[in-house]
């Protein structure tokens, strides 16, 4: 038994990119080599790849995303025909790729087993004979009578694996997604695959799971940009591959140290004198300059009087921003590294809040209901209540409804300006009161009038 690929090369043409030049330097480690020839761009997915597998060989294929692993498997399975080189084997090759491929989603599990058997060239009788063992291995039981589209990906994987190993399993190719099964079934798979040694199967497995590869495979190839970079015993190669991946990850993590000197963060006004409890907050402007920090961007957060920290802005290292009217003495601004959350600078609005409460001002409070007039014989309608009591000094307001029988019910509690819709209960005589939530003092009232017929 053998599976051989000799000097296999394969390239895809990219359409619709004429005249565009892409900078692929940044993604050098991903994907195949990009080339331009004539009017087209090409991706060389496989470049002069040769492998020679004999009975008992279980080959692990490792490499980054897009290094050519799946393409190689599909070439070995006969799905892609390479433009150069050739693939030969003396036994049928069966592959397990994407679970969405090679099944009929409307057909039942049993029916899919039948189709897979026919593809493998078995007769109906041979397939019928194999079904009990497949059914038992999948542990899917009554689900085999249901359409495949009702399966979870793990269940579909069970079926795919059982079928692939039951029919023409001499040479088996498996891509990544073996991880879809649960731990118990993964154990079963590994057991069956390691059992292949005795029965002299050939197995090619592409995966990112170093643990799985070490347990199942005995040889390995390392693909990079469509070429075989290294080959050898699986343990050595996976070690080296992992060591390199770790080194890359470390290199990416090392950063310029963040410096806190020279960073400025200013708020104006920076003092609020004579601020009384109940006064409305003020509008302000915050400026920052964190160019010396070495960061690309910064985050500004606000800590309110209650101590709660809220993100205010994520912006460039130099900038300014205006606030809405909520500046009060004691409000703190923090300038932070958006990645780590380190506080690089902070500033607090100075001043004290006198506990003596200022009287609420009612002059500029607006309060309205829409519709404000309607005929009395009409059914209740939906409406909207709008208010703006920001100048009153109340932090929180409350709106209550007085229904036609004179009963008062709280309707809304919240911000000193806004609007809210009602259900269909507006009718002439329904009234609303706008009150300071703290003292209960009525600031404004409005009611729906009866329209003159």
């Amino acid at each position, binding site marked *: 038994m053998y599976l051989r690929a000799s000097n296999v090369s394969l390239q895809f043409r990219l359409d619709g990119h004429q005249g565009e030049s892409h900078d692929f330097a940044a993604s050098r480690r991903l994907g195949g080599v990009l080339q*331009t020839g004539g009017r087209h761009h090409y991706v060389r997915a496989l470049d002069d790849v040769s492998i020679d597998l004999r009975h008992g060989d279980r080959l692990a294929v490792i490499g980054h995303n897009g290094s050519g692993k799946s393409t190689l498997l599909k070439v070995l399975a006969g799905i892609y025909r390479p433009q150069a080189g050739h693939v030969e084997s003396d036994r049928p090759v069966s592959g397990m790729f994407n679970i969405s491929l090679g099944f009929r989603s409307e057909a039942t599990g049993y029916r899919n087993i039948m189709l897979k058997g026919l593809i493998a060239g078995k007769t109906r009788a041979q397939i019928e004979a194999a079904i009990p063992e497949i059914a038992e291995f999948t542990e899917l039981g009554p689900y085999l009578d249901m359409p495949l589209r009702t399966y979870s990906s793990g269940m579909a994987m069970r079926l795919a694996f059982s079928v692939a190993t039951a029919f023409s399993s001499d040479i088996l190719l498996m891509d990544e997604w073996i991880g879809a099964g649960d731990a118990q079934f993964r154990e079963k798979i590994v057991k069956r695959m390691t059992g292949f040694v005795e029965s002299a199967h050939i197995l090619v497995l592409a995966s990112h799971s170093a643990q799985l590869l070490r347990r199942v495979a005995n040889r390995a190839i390392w693909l990079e940009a469509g070429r075989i970079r290294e080959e050898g015993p699986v343990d050595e190669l996976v070690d080296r591959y992992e060591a390199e991946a770790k080194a890359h990850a470390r290199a990416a993590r090392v950063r310029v140290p963040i410096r806190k000197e020279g960073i400025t963060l200013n708020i104006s006004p920076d003092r609020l004198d004579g601020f009384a409890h109940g006064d409305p907050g003020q509008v302000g402007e915050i400026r920052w300059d964190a160019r010396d920090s070495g960061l690309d961007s910064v985050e500004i957060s606000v800590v309110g009087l209650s101590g709660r920290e809220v993100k205010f802005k994520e912006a460039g290292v130099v900038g300014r921003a205006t606030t809405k009217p909520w500046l009060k003495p004691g409000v703190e601004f923090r300038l932070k590294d958006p990645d780590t959350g380190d506080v690089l600078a902070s500033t607090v609005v100075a001043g004290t809040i006198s506990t003596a409460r200022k009287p609420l001002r009612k002059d500029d409070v607006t309060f309205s209901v829409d519709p404000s007039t309607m005929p009395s014989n009409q059914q209740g309608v939906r409406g909207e209540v709008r208010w703006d009591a920001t100048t009153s000094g109340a932090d929180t307001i409350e709106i209550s409804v007085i229904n036609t029988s004179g009963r008062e019910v709280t309707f809304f509690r919240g911000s000193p300006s806004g609007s809210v819709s009602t259900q269909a209960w507006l009718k002439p005589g329904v009234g609303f009161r706008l009150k300071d939530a703290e003292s209960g003092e009525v600031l404004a009232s409005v009611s729906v009038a009866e329209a003159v017929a």
Partner: protein
Amino acid sequence: MDVASGSDDDTGPVVGASRLTSGRRALSLALHEWTKSFRMWRLWIALGMEDLSDRYRRTMLGISWVVTSFAAFIFVYIEIFGHGSGVTLAEYGLYVTIGFGLWSFVSSSVSNGCSVYTSSRNWIMGESIPYPVFFLQTVFRDFVVFMMTLLVIAAALVWKKQVWSPTTLWAIPGVLAYLLPPLWLGAILAPLCTRYRDVMHAIQTAMRVLFFATPILWLPSQRSGLAFIAKYNVLTYFIEIVRAPLLENTFPANAWIVVLLVNAVGIVVGFATYAATRDRIVYWL
């Protein structure tokens, strides 16, 4: 996406400079695939049945919907347009039933032939199955539906005016001659429609026009202008080899010559197209 070693202007950075499949090699591979596919009859019959059961899943009438809808259409059509056709209602009824029944097979063969690769994408990308299996699956499935239509045609033969004669039986090889064109037509159209997705729409448009240039709803004796155009329409002869024996107990020798010639040319062109495009289909999908 496309494979680099394609037509002559595709002189990309071709690997190793070797054109993998020189013409002869491609032809022999294609021949091998076709013969292998015919032997895999269990598979394409199963896939075709799967298509049919998908289409009529959870219906009560199942595939007999084909009979029902075709019969209903014919009945209403004849009732509305049958009067004033110049011949008796029975004669016209049989004429339209046969013609329209045959046309519906032709029409579905063409449009399904276009989509052979696209609708089998799932298998082409996931399994190494010789592609002719998908053509055979399509033809098998469409022919099963066609046989339902033939039941309606058989029933319509009660309208037959002339007595039965042995010549009438020439209609049977006539029907069998319909098995071949979907295969080579699919082999020509499927790669085109896969590579250029506009082609499918263009073909559907053309088929609509062609329908009126084929003597199906009108009688050549009544519409001389259309009859002149229909003479240059191959489909006229395909209809003729079945309809003439049934209606007039005649053997249309000329029509048979045209049909056999068209099939012969079609098989050659279809096979060549298949061999030339086979390796690139997977990249076009």
